[in-house]
Structures are given as structure tokens and as C-alpha cells.
């Protein structure tokens, strides 16, 4: 995607426009896993849903370029979109209970998806569903195919959703915080499963999360989002060991070794993410950034290349490297 | 039990002047006022109510004056803008005066049922367990009867007359409101803030008074408003059957009954009371709808 912008026009808010995504450039190669990291309100989920154009058409305006497998998604008609969804691009969600239909057995839902996109008989589709369940390591798959979503445990539901998403052998898998709601022991199982499937099937995955640890387990490349823009992206190893953007630094700091020591106060950034309906003209992070200068508030920082595949949006990159900055002019409200 | 908490580390200063946000009630009113359909409905209801209240003073003619010569005059007859009924009485005046009873029979039973039903429902919902079971099963017994049949049966047992009709209608609506009240109260009872209030040692009465009531009255009230139209129609039905209002009192339902015979000669006149019943019912429903929408939206 290039320069993707998504705006929401909320009705009844006196014409206020929420700029959820403001110029996101992202490239995903085949078989690659990219993690979109950010906190709530950063625009990561919106970006993900925009790839399949899942937003309500009435209130949303998407501009920019968006191509999936060579096809221009933004120009597609509803029918073409329906053919795209599920077959080329599939999605898994954070809460399987909300994403799976509660009145149909899970197996029936998978069969329905398969038959929608491919011309298979009921028996053939059922066999494929069974094979999928075995692939995602659901024990007693025959029995589980006939089960309803609420009869399964959290981990199994998530596996069922992955099976559903992979039913038509898509090329791209969109994962919206799939492990956030799961227990730690189940989370690691699902992450490993995703990695395994990805390697086996050559899937490209866009993995949205706020948990850097989970992202580190699966991602080849990472992109950090703030206020609807990608502030830094690069290969996972590089980003984790040599973060350059101030926001990335602060995110990683909260999990690094020196940060969480008993007795020491936690490092925090004052303030809160900006209101997406009233974005400042300059860098969105400038008002909370310790290295901000006047120029930061006036114009959007351009993308600077820091290494192979490693870019960041900041005009103060040379100064950001551990030197203690000034302390004044930081009086934001507490979040 | 000592009422004084241990002294704090610092002396507590006087309360600070705060900027109060608009309360929930005020927000609901604001949203309601912006809803054109609800406002139209409210205007219609207001008009009808005012006309009914001031009817004795603004009636053009005597609603009880019969005249065999002026029977079933059509609409637009000079002196009788809406024609006359089968006994020669002026329709317009009868409709205006009839509004009093009809509207009263629509609103009063619902109001009383609201008070009684909410009491039962909130008690059952908050208490839970055995008390809930006993109360709600008693309510269910009454609820099992179709409302029309129940109203008729009770009216028949109590005898005709306005007060008896009122009582029977109230009894019909109490179970319905009690059910809603119990359901909403049970939901609220389960929320964390009620737990927090219990955890601070408040008595059940205090919790219901300060935490539960404010959160349940809204939905119950909306539901009750939608019952007004039902009540009107039921009351009209009772009058139609001769179980409510007695002639020569004007009341829309009763008028529908007595004008039955005029359907072939003056259909428009015969339909007039029905039209008014219809308009009032629809207006109350629209208003209830608007209220519900206004309360639903969470910013």
C-alpha cells in the first residue's frame, strides 16, 4: 500500500473527520510476516480492515493506493471484493466468539466458505475441513467439526478460526490481535502454530498487536504505528536491537532489562495519544517527545532511510541516541 | 459502630468548585428535542391533552344535546363542523370532551402499573433467590392470560364503570412492567459498580436508592410509555363492550360502539373516533421510540 489514508466521517459530530490512518506505506512480500505494533488509537486495526475494505462504505473515505496480489483493491466492485475476501485475503480476529457464528457448528461454517469460493461437493468440502482441523492441531477433529463455537475453549476457538481463514488457501492472512485475549500458555501455542503454518503454506501475514513480545515471536519485519502513521519500520532484529524513533524507544524501554527493576520508578511518557479528529500539523508525537524542537511541530517528518529496509519518520534522528534531552515545555494532561 | 474514620494524614480542605458536565437526563432531553419525529409526536399529544383539558370551555356545542332532526348530519354541516352522531349530538364537541376520558384511561392505569410493577420488579431483581422466584412466578400467572381476556374478565367480575376499568387495566399491566423491571434490575445488580458499593459496606436500601434506581428507571419508563397506546385501545375496547364507560358519557371507544350502525350511512363520521384513537396511539409509540433511541446512544 502506498500513502494509504482512511478517514471516518462520524455522522452527527458536526462534520468532524476522524483521520484514522494518515499516509501509511507498507509493502508485504510473499511469505513474509509483518507485525504492526501500536497502542490503542494508533490506527493499526483500521489499516488492517482497510486492506479488505471492511469499513462501512458510507462513513469512510479511503484514498491512496492499495494493491493485493496485483489487483487494485480500492477500485473493486462489491462482487470483486467478495471474491477477494476469503480466497486471496483472509482475516482472523481477536475474539473468536464474536467472529464465529454462534448458531452454526464450526464445521458447517468452514464448509460454507469453501463452497462459496470453490466448486466442491459437500463431502469434498467436509474432508477438506477435517484436514484443516488436523493441521491446526485440534484434538478429535471429527467431533469438533460438529461443535458450536461456545462449546470450545478459547485456544481451540482460535484454532478453529485459523482453520476457517485458511480454508481457501489464501495468499495473505490478516491477524488482528489474535492472541491478546488468550492465556500465556495458549498464546505461545497459537503463535508457534501460526509460524508453522506460515512456513508450510508460504503465507504472507500482517500481524497487528500491541504486544512486542508476541510480535517478536512471529515477525520478520515490524512497523510501529502512532496516530495513524508508521513512525518506524524495519527488520525485526534491527528494530528490536537498534530502535531509533523516540516512540519506538519508549515502547521497547518498558520491557527492557533496566526498566522494570524493583524499587525503581518506571519510565513513562507524559501525555496521551492525540485526538484523531484534531491532529497537529507537525509530527503527532512532538508534544510528548523529549527531543522535539520547533521544526517538529510545523511539518510532517519525511521518511528517512537508516539501513536496508529500516526507515523512520523523524527529523531528530541523529540526536536521539541516549543523550539526556531538555526537560521543559512538557505539560500535557495525564491520560 | 463508630461513624468517624481514622484521621487522614493531611487535613482535608473544603470541596473545590467543579465544572459539572451535563447529566444523563439532560443529555437525553437534548437528543430527544433534536428528533423531528419524536417532537412531532410530542406536539400532537400535547395538542390532544390541551384540548381535552380545556374541552368544557372551548367546545362549540353541547355534547349532550340530542336532536332527532339533526341525526347523522355529514361533515361540514354549518354549525356542526364534524357532523353529528346517531342521536344528533355534535361530533366535534363529543370528541373533544371524550378525549378527557380516553386519555385518562390510557395514561392512568399505566402510571399506576409503573409504580406498582417497578416496585415488585426491582425488589425481585435485587433480592434474587427465593424472593425473586416467588414474586416472579406470581407475576407469571397473571402474565399468562392474554391482556384483552384478562381485562374483560376482571371488568366483568368487578362490574362496569370507570374505576373498575381502571383497576382491571392496572392489573393487566403490572406483570408486564414487573418483568421488565426485574430483568433490568438483575442486570444492573451484576455490574461491578454495585459490587463496589456493596464492598464499601452500604446497606441494600442505600444501594438500590442511589445506584440501582437511576439506572433502571429509564428503560422501564420507556417500556411503560409504549404501553399507553395499548391501554387506550384496551380501554376503548372495554367501553365498546359496555364494560367501561357508560353512555351518555363521551369516550372514543364508546362512540365507536354506538356509531356502529352508522357505518353504512355516514362512514366518515363512524370512523372519526377510531382515527383519534389511532393518532394518539401512534404518537405515543413514536414518542416512546424516540425516548428509547435518545437513551440508547452512549457517547
Amino acid at each position, binding site marked *: 500500500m502506498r500513502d494509504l489514508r482512511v478517514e471516518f466521517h462520524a455522522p452527527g459530530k458536526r462534520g468532524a473527520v476522524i483521520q484514522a490512518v494518515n499516509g501509511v506505506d507498507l509493502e508485504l512480500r510473499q511469505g513474509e510476516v509483518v507485525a504492526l505494533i501500536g497502542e490503542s488509537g494508533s490506527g493499526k486495526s483500521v489499516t488492517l480492515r482497510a486492506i479488505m475494505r471492511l469499513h462501512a462504505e458510507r462513513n469512510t473515505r479511503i484514498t491512496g493506493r492499495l494493491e493485493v496480489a496485483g489487483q487494485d483493491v480500492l477500485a473493486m466492485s462489491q462482487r470483486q471484493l467478495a471474491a477477494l475476501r476469503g480466497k486471496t485475503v483472509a482475516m482472523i480476529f481477536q475474539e473468536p466468539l464474536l467472529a464465529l457464528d454462534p448458531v452454526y457448528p464450526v464445521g458447517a461454517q468452514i464448509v460454507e466458505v469453501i463452497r462459496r469460493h470453490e466448486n466442491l461437493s459437500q463431502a469434498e468440502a467436509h474432508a477438506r475441513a477435517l484436514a484443516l482441523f488436523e493441521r491446526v492441531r485440534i484434538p478429535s477433529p471429527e467431533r469438533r467439526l460438529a461443535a458450536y463455537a461456545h462449546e470450545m475453549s478459547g485456544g481451540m476457538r482460535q484454532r478453529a478460526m485459523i482453520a476457517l481463514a485458511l480454508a481457501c488457501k489464501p495468499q495473505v492472512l490478516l491477524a488482528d490481535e489474535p492472541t491478546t485475549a488468550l492465556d500465556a*500458555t495458549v498464546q505461545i501455542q497459537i503463535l508457534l502454530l501460526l509460524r508453522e503454518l506460515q512456513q508450510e503454506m508460504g503465507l504472507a501475514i500482517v500481524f497487528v498487536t500491541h504486544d512486542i513480545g508476541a510480535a517478536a515471536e512471529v515477525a520478520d519485519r515490524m512497523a510501529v504505528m502512532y496516530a495513524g502513521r508508521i513512525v518506524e519500520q524495519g527488520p525485526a532484529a534491527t528494530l528490536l536491537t537498534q530502535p531509533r524513533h523516540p516512540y519506538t*524507544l519508549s515502547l521497547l524501554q518498558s520491557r527492557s532489562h533496566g526498566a522494570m527493576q524493583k524499587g525503581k520508578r518506571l519510565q513513562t511518557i507524559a501525555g496521551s495519544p492525540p485526538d484523531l479528529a484534531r491532529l497537529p500539523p507537525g509530527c503527532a508525537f512532538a508534544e510528548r517527545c523529549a527531543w522535539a524542537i520547533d521544526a517538529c511541530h510545523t511539518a510532517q517528518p519525511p521518511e528517512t532511510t537508516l539501513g536496508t529496509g529500516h526507515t523512520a519518520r523523524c527529523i531528530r534522528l541523529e540526536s536521539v541516541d541516549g543523550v539526556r534531552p531538555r526537560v521543559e515545555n512538557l505539560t500535557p494532561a495525564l491520560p | 459502630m463508630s461513624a468517624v474514620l481514622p484521621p487522614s494524614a493531611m487535613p482535608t480542605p473544603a470541596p473545590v468548585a467543579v465544572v459539572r458536565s451535563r447529566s444523563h437526563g439532560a443529555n437525553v432531553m437534548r437528543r430527544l428535542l433534536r428528533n423531528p419525529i419524536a417532537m412531532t409526536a410530542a406536539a400532537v399529544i400535547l395538542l390532544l391533552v390541551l384540548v381535552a383539558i380545556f374541552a368544557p370551555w372551548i367546545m362549540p356545542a353541547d355534547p349532550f344535546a340530542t336532536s332527532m332532526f339533526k341525526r347523522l348530519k355529514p361533515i361540514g354541516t354549518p354549525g356542526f363542523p364534524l357532523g353529528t352522531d346517531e342521536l344528533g349530538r355534535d361530533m366535534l364537541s363529543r370528541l373533544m370532551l371524550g378525549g378527557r376520558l380516553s386519555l385518562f384511561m390510557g395514561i392512568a392505569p399505566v402510571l399506576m402499573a409503573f409504580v406498582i410493577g417497578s416496585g415488585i420488579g426491582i425488589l425481585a431483581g435485587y433480592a434474587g433467590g427465593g424472593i425473586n422466584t416467588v414474586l416472579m412466578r406470581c407475576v407469571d400467572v397473571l402474565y399468562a392470560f392474554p391482556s384483552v381476556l384478562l381485562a374483560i374478565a376482571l371488568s366483568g367480575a368487578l362490574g362496569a364503570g370507570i374505576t373498575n376499568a381502571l383497576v382491571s387495566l392496572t392489573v393487566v399491566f403490572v406483570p408486564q412492567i414487573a418483568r421488565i423491571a426485574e430483568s433490568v434490575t438483575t442486570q444492573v445488580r451484576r455490574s461491578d459498580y454495585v459490587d463496589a458499593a456493596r*464492598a464499601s459496606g452500604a446497606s441494600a436500601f442505600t444501594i438500590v436508592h442511589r445506584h440501582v434506581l437511576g439506572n433502571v428507571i429509564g428503560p422501564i419508563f420507556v417500556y411503560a410509555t409504549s404501553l399507553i397506546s395499548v391501554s387506550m385501545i384496551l380501554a376503548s375496547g372495554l367501553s365498546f363492550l359496555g364494560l367501561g364507560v357508560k353512555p351518555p358519557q363521551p369516550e372514543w371507544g364508546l362512540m365507536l360502539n354506538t356509531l356502529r350502525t352508522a357505518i353504512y350511512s355516514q362512514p366518515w363520521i363512524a370512523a372519526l373516533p377510531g382515527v383519534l384513537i389511532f393518532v394518539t396511539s401512534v404518537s405515543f409509540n413514536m414518542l416512546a421510540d424516540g425516548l428509547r433511541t435518545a437513551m440508547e446512544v452512549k457517547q
Partner: protein
Amino acid sequence: MSTAKHIPNITPAAMADPRDVGGPRQPLLRAQNLLKHFPLKRKGLDFRGPKPVVRAVDGVSFDIKKGETLGVVGESGCGKSTTARLLMQLTLQDKGELIFDGQTVGSSSLPLREFRRQTQMVFQDSYSSLNPRMTIEDSVAFGPTVHGVTQRAALARAHDLLARVGLDPARFAGRYPHELSGGQRQRVNIARALALEPRLVILDEAVSALDKSVEAQVLNLLEDLKRDFGLTYLFISHDLHVVRYVSDRVLVMYLGQVVEVGPADQVFDAPRHPYTRALLQSMPSTDPLQRTTEAPLSGDPPNPIDPPPGCRFHTRCAFAQPVCGQQVPQFVEPAPGHGVACLRWQPESGYEPMPDFPRPSPAPAKSLMPLNAAVASEMPDIFPEARRG
């Protein structure tokens, strides 16, 4: 900070509390054999056998020492939330006792209402913990008014507390919960919990739903308040990093029972129970060059309706032996202050130890490894401390 890890960090304020009855060595709260089963409807018409129950809390005993922060970890179904509710007496236990500062809760020396003034709870869902129809100053002032404080004094105290948690009363006190962000609401919940000046505060996943940056600020705030008011915390969470940072001692629960308890550093660096070890290994590695290759535990956490016989963990345990399915482990203390319920550590239990036993448990702590030591050392203080967290 104290280096002797088995002595909890007792703050001076907790000692000087005029309400203190039992003295410094008396645990502030002692839970003894708490039991809570939730009955289920029978499936169908099968009337044979006992009625199925959810054994949410099945014989839990522990102490909370004065002035400490006790962390509680465990996965869904382990009973930690039910335990919290039992401690608050929002749900009454079927069996077992609570002893607060030496006095039994619910007895004549410590009636329930009095106990409620001294123990408060902060819930996970910041939104549903606040009455949507009440302004936040009213919500915070409600508790004191119940206990006889005048409205005016209660409001004054509410404003004071709101200021302490970092919310300017002039701007925030008149607002409604839906007008605040998640982090702000959680601060209000903390203020509300403190309005009654409790001695024990139970934090049930209080920071789990917050963004990381907000979480850090709220954790700093909690630390400050603990120091200023001499509080004792019970901190329930599933986030092991946070629990390690916050807690003096840690309790690990599995399927309604306590499986391990001890000083935080010991439990995290040298866990003795296989479940604790698996839990620590399940934390995602933050080093992309050294990824986890195998899930430490397979399957989902089992159902508390029908727990396995003997040791409840034996069906998923890597070290299980046949005796584990027959004998229920007793709680033993292989090291002072560090208790575990596992047959491996129980002498004469019938468990056949491996030749290399006992040894410090196999290294689990890869997940707590430094993200990047080089980066960490270069950034000692890159962000200025925010005021008041």
C-alpha cells in the same frame, strides 16, 4: 531496597497505623482453607452420582503480610478472581475462614461492615466499575457517606483523592465516566477504593486493560500511594513482567489451588513447581533471533468442573509419574518462605526423583532476559520523569 528477599518490604507507615491490632508479625489477612464450589444444573435427567460443581476455589490458604505486595498469577479457570471476591466477601465462601489482623471476619470482634472499611478492591473493567449515572466525585464520595461522613466532608475528601491520583478536581470531578479515558477511569477507581482509607487493597487485573504507557504511570501511582498511605496490596495479574516488578512475594494458582508461593525473585528465577516453570517459559521471547521452538504446555487449561485426581497438574506435567495421579501433594517448604505443592519436593511421597535431583530448577528465565543490554545501558534516563507518575 531490602536485599534479604524473604523479608517483605514493610513500609513504616503501615507500622504506625493506629488501627493496627496484631502487631508487625501478624499477617494482615490470613485465608484458611477457603472453599467455594458453584453448583451446575445436571445435564439431562441423569440423577446418578453427585451433582456437578465448578470447583472454583478448592482449599486455598495463604497469608498477606503487613505492608507487602502479594502478587497472584494464574490462568483462566485457576480461581484467582473468585478468591479475590471471597477475600472481599462479595461472595461468601462455602468453607474456610478469613482472619484479618488476628480477628475472624464476620465475628463479633470484626463485623462485616467494619471489615469492609479496611479492605477495598479495584476491578479490571474500569468502565463497569463506575455508575454511569453518577459523577465521579459522587462515586468516590459514596463510600464515606455510607459510613457517616457528611456529604461536604466526603466531597472534600473525594477532591483531595482525585488530586492525589493525578486528576485535577476542578476539571474532572463533575464529569461522568464515559467522558474519561481508560487510564483516567482506573485512577478514579483507585481514588474510590482509597476513599474509605483501607489497609488492604485488592487489585484484580487493575492495569491489564490499559495501554503500556498508561500502565506504567498507574503502577508508579500505586507505588506512591502505597508509601503515602501505608497500604498492603494483593496484586492479581496474568502479566508476569508486571507481577515481578510490583510484588514482594508471589502466589501461583492452578485449578483452584495454590501450587507455589514465595519471594518474587525466587519464584521467577528458580521456580519449583512445574506449572510455574511452564508459565514462565510461555512468555514470548523478545529476541527474534532466539525464538521459542516448542510450546512448554500442550492443550488448554482444564475445566474446574472435573479436575484430575491426585495432583491436578499431572495430566500436563513434564515430570509426572504414576504416583502423581494417585496422591494429592501437600504443601511443603523446601526453602524458608518458599512453599510448593508438588510431590517432587515432598519427601517420602512415593515420587522417584531423577538422579540429578535436587537441583535448582532448569533455567526458565529466557523470557526475562534483557531485550538488549547494550541499548539498556545507553538509555539510563532518556525520558524525563512525568510528574506524579
